[in-house]
């Protein structure tokens, strides 16, 4: 792995969102317009995953610096 691959650590964002975020959000027992915050959070994590993977993919495709 070369120095250009630092952005790949972004992949940890969804992992942390689910593995750390879910237990914390669950404790709040909150709702958003009646919908459980836990579900809203998880759906948010799924959307962010797609976004993060798109960013990683775009950065991976950059031509290598000279």
């Amino acid at each position, binding site marked *: 792995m070369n120095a250009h691959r630092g952005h*790949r650590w972004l*992949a940890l964002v*969804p*992992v942390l969102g*689910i*593995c750390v975020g*879910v*237990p914390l959000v*669950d404790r709040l*027992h909150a*709702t958003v*317009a*009646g*919908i*459980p915050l*836990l*579900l809203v959070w*998880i*759906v948010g*994590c*799924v*959307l962010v*995953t*797609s976004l*993060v*993977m*798109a960013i*990683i*993919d775009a950065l*991976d495709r950059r031509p290598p610096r000279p």
Partner: protein
Amino acid sequence: MNPALLVLLAFLLLALSLGVWARRGHTMSLEQWTVGGRGFGTVFVLLLMAGEIYTTFTFLGASGWAYGRGAPAFYILCYGTLAYVLSYFLLPAVWRYGIEHRLHSQADFLAHKFGSRALGVLVALVGVTAMIPYLVLQLKGLGIIVSETSYGRLSVAQAVWISVVALVSYVVVSGVRGSAYTAVVKDIMILAVAVALGIWLPFHYYGGLGPMFTAIEQAKPGFLSLPAKGMSASWFVSTVLLSALGFYMWPHSFASVYTARSEDTFRRNAIAMPLYQLVLMFVFFVGFAAVLKVPGLEGADADLSLLRLSKMSFGPWTLGLIGAAGLLTALVPGSMLLMTASTVLAKNVWGALAPGTSEMRMAALARWLVPVLALIAVLFTLHGGTAIVPLLLLGYNFVTQLFPTFVLSLSTRRVVSASGAIAGILTGEAIVIFLQVSGVKLATVFPTWPSIITDLNIGVVALIANTVVLLTVSAMTRRARV
């Protein structure tokens, strides 16, 4: 004829024709039959891989979990998401190595990586042991869906036999092309049905999603949060992680990697798949809508919640469409399971025991095995009783035990030896079987430990033991060689 039955049979016929038609213009060598000549673009690969998410288990199970257990059901939406993150980094390497060595299966991959035919045989057998019960699960689901949505006009046994004949026909004729073509119809149907039901039912019965969840929370306080014990946050996180690791260890998912034309496919899929599986959210909504409308479904009957609520809410035409979507969610994964199990038995077991078997012979053998395996699965489905249930639960834990060997095989340094891999996998599987058969739980062995530890998915224990044995034996055999 009952309109629902008419719709069901029309879709079965459509699947069969598409599946058979998929072959046109191709001679079915092993290369075409199992991996579609490695010529599939992003959409086909996405649909094949989505076969793993939208099975009858998700159609009936995801709604059943939401209905019966509440918030713990959300884990189903999480593990796939993390598996896609992993796939971005792992699958391109699997694909490249497959092209270099003309591989057709997961057992091929590991046997090649370690230069060990014995490991290939072991991986093939582990895979088949996990796949047959999984196929039985699909057929059981199919039987329930078709008999419920045809208002009992077709019995479970009739539904299973008719569908299996169609399934075997197009698998034998077209192989993975048949799966890919039928997957197109299946995904259009399941998308339409799940989204329509998931939006319409909450609005029709409760006036919206917010009011629905409020009513559930009032009737069953705490149902929409993770429980403090049992399926707690620590169960949730450990199960999500284990399932994410096991996701691509299913031999049929692994093999679908080799159908791709280019490795870019997997990077694009890692972006698209998380969004695509949000359909599951709508399936949850159906299960939640059923909580107060069709109460009283206990235990395994919770899986009937979607069908019962649909039956109560719609006429026979609509019910037939819902049933057709359910039928297709069984056929597509079913076809991939049958094909993959036949391929690994022919190539990685028979081919290893009788070296020098030509690829043409193996292709012929694999196609002969399709009806044989299908027959075994039907017998288990109709006459297996409850004996099959523990096997079903084993499946996921079984394939997950392949992950440590797999991921370490991608490293450029040779950390793992073939004997280490075999020892590790055998240890993991032995523990999985023991835990399943004995029913031992961490909470019963260590009653005084905090629930944050004892609620951990017990599969973690097998995976850790597996990895420790794998590394230890590898270190020992490496030193012995020097």
